[in-house]
């Protein structure tokens, strides 16, 4: 494990995951400060190019988080996202960005604890992987 | 003519590398040779067939920052490296650099191009084999044409015949252990020639010929022909943000791209594939000679060899000359 402090970019959907992150904050649950959050209307808004661009800019990890399948505010946005992001992960792996550097998680507005745990796990794993080349 | 043996070549290259950087053809993979900065003289390949990219990027890089500006550091112009030796440049590519001199060194000269040109010694290399796409003899040069190089090498058994053409070239050769040449200059390979003299006049009457539409049917409107061309020199300039400031980037561009001639209003005077393709040939064989008195082509044949759909400039020239492109 290195003392490298990974930089993580998080795309969080407005309706579930962003509220979940907010809940983690208001509940004073501690999680690593390595994540920078961008609020998006829906995980379906996350163009895979945004993730590619984040890696180009040197982020060590990217998190996309949305409502649990079935709970999407727009009914289906996260189902589409799920397919797109699955193929993106395969592509990233193939060009040499370890699959563990890209996570897709479903976090509801009530899951502040879960959000904090996901970020903590993610940052720990990124520390194990070390800095990106 | 002097002679440099294969044995002494390595020593010579090492001493050149002590003076400046050495750029020479190097194998990078199966069937891929590129002009590269040399770290080990053993990597130099002077038997190379061709490189997809001519060495024009040594003077006119595919991308470069012209300057940077920021509140903290003010205005900065990136440095240009010191002396360089461009070894193994073929006569066609050396002509390409002379052709690029016309636009870039005409007043007001492009300072970055000029500095790079001044710092570089061109060490030419004769061709002992012609490729099927070669037609350099159409443009007043040939396989052993040394006129656009500072020094020139001709491969012979056991080494190279060497000749200095300019002071810079003499200085570069002075670093070599030369012997008096006992081998006669070999016979250069035959390179077919197209009598291009009349092209400019004839082409002017064919501007509205349907020939261009038909030729453009298979054109992809990619920029490959321009990027592999030793005399294509168009570029685009834009500013991009960097940390705490911005930089002005100049990158290769080409008239084959639909975005190239689009104006601020959104109007594009060359909207069709055919008009863009026609522009390529008119620029080389009509506008460029009108401006500078020389054809904008060196006969290297790279566009012939690399065009994915085989738009062959030689066929176009012959079609113009034979009147096949006449307006119906």
């Amino acid at each position, binding site marked *: 494990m290195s003392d490298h402090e990974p930089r993580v970019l998080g795309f969080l959907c407005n309706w579930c995951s962003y509220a979940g992150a907010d809940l983690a904050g208001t509940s004073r649950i501690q999680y690593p400060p390595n994540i920078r959050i961008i609020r998006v209307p829906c995980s379906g808004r996350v163009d895979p190019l945004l993730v590619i661009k984040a890696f180009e800019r040197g982020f060590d990890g990217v998190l996309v988080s949305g409502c649990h399948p079935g709970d999407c505010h727009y009914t289906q946005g996260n189902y589409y996202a799920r397919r797109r992001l699955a193929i993106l992960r395969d592509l990233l792996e193939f060009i040499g960005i370890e699959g563990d550097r890209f996570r897709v998680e479903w976090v509801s507005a009530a899951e502040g604890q879960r959000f904090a745990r996901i970020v903590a796990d993610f940052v720990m794993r990124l520390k194990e992987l070390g800095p990106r080349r | 003519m002097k002679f440099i043996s294969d044995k002494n070549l390595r020593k010579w290259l090492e001493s050149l590398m002590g003076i400046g950087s050495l750029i020479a053809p190097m194998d990078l993979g199966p069937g891929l040779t590129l002009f590269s900065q040399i770290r080990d003289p053993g990597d130099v390949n002077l038997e190379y067939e061709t490189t997809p990219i001519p060495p024009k990027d040594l003077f006119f890089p595919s991308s470069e920052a012209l300057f940077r500006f920021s509140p903290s550091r003010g205005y900065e112009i990136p440095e240009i490296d010191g002396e360089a030796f461009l070894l193994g440049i073929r006569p066609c590519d050396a002509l390409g650099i002379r052709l690029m001199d016309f636009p870039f060194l005409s007043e007001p000269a492009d300072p970055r191009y000029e500095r790079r040109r001044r710092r570089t010694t061109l060490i030419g290399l004769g061709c002992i084999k012609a490729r099927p796409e070669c037609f350099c003899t159409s443009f007043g040069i040939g396989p052993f044409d040394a006129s656009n190089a500072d020094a020139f090498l001709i491969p012979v058994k056991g080494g190279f015949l060497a000749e200095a053409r300019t002071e810079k070239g003499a200085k570069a050769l002075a670093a070599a252990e030369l012997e008096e040449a006992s081998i006669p200059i070999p016979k250069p390979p035959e390179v077919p020639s197209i009598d291009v003299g009349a092209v400019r006049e004839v082409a002017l009457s064919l501007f509205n010929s349907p020939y261009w539409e038909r030729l453009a049917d298979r054109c992809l409107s*990619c920029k490959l022909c321009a990027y592999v061309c030793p005399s294509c020199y168009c570029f685009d300039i834009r500013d991009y943000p960097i940390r705490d400031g911005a930089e002005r980037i100049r990158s290769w561009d080409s008239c084959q791209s639909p975005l190239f001639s689009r104006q601020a209003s959104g109007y594009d005077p060359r909207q069709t594939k055919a008009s863009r393709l026609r522009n390529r040939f008119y620029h080389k064989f009509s506008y460029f000679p009108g401006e500078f008195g020389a054809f904008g082509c060196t006969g290297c044949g790279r566009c012939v060899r*690399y065009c994915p*759909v085989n738009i062959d400039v030689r066929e176009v020239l012959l079609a113009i000359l034979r009147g096949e492109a006449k307006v119906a």
Partner: protein
Amino acid sequence: MEEIRAKAIELLRSGEVKCFIGYERASDGLTARPFFAYSADDAGRLIFDRTCAHNLARYLPDMRGQRVAILVKPCDSRSVNVLIQEGQVNREEVYVVGVVCDGVYKASWGQPSQELEARCLYCSRRVPVVYDHLIGQPPASEPQTPASIPEVEALERRSAKERWEFWRSHFARCIRCNACRQICPACYCPQCFSDQLDPLWTGIRIGLPQNWVWNVGRALHLAGRCADCGGCERACPMGIPLAALNRKLAGRVKELFGFEAGLDPRAPFPFATFKKEEVL
């Protein structure tokens, strides 16, 4: 060859099509290049052999609004279907002449070869998936071919770090001439993301990391849409093994979604549909 010419003459003479898109001999006298025949006279120049590697479906969107005939190999025929599926080509406007294919040679201009292109070694189709008229004798059964693609497997076996270095060194060489994009039947966007100014995905700069974004983005946009015609890789003057990216993703789209590009023009596109219960 004679059969193709005869069919072209018939279609052009009857006025059924304005143009027949096929192949003619290239200027090296050895390989082939795309050819647009407008008359029975032109049709005499048509050829077909194992040097006819181009995927002519690329030209169909250019010809919209006119009735044309096109010669397709099995791989190319899948691209025709992709274009129909995506609303870029009107099936009624295109007369598809399919040709039974045993693979094409790895030849390039001036450099003949009798070696099959790598993709033809594992291609399992000899007969086009869409045609109005078929030329050649279909085999009794489609051939058995290996399920895996050696070049993709070799890369998968390497470590992530090695793959990163591999692709970075290739993309560093990219000159962004856009030949890979312009030759691709699936790349018909009026404005490519790489030409966009806002958001600025790549900008005009040629070099890493912009080339990296371009090449990764290109591969991504072809997932589930690439028919593996190999055009991008053949066109690349810098020898970048682009098709390996497309093949990797085509394989995953098949594994994950059971979808292969261009087999059925009416099938929903895998990224425009979903299954609620799927686990990805």
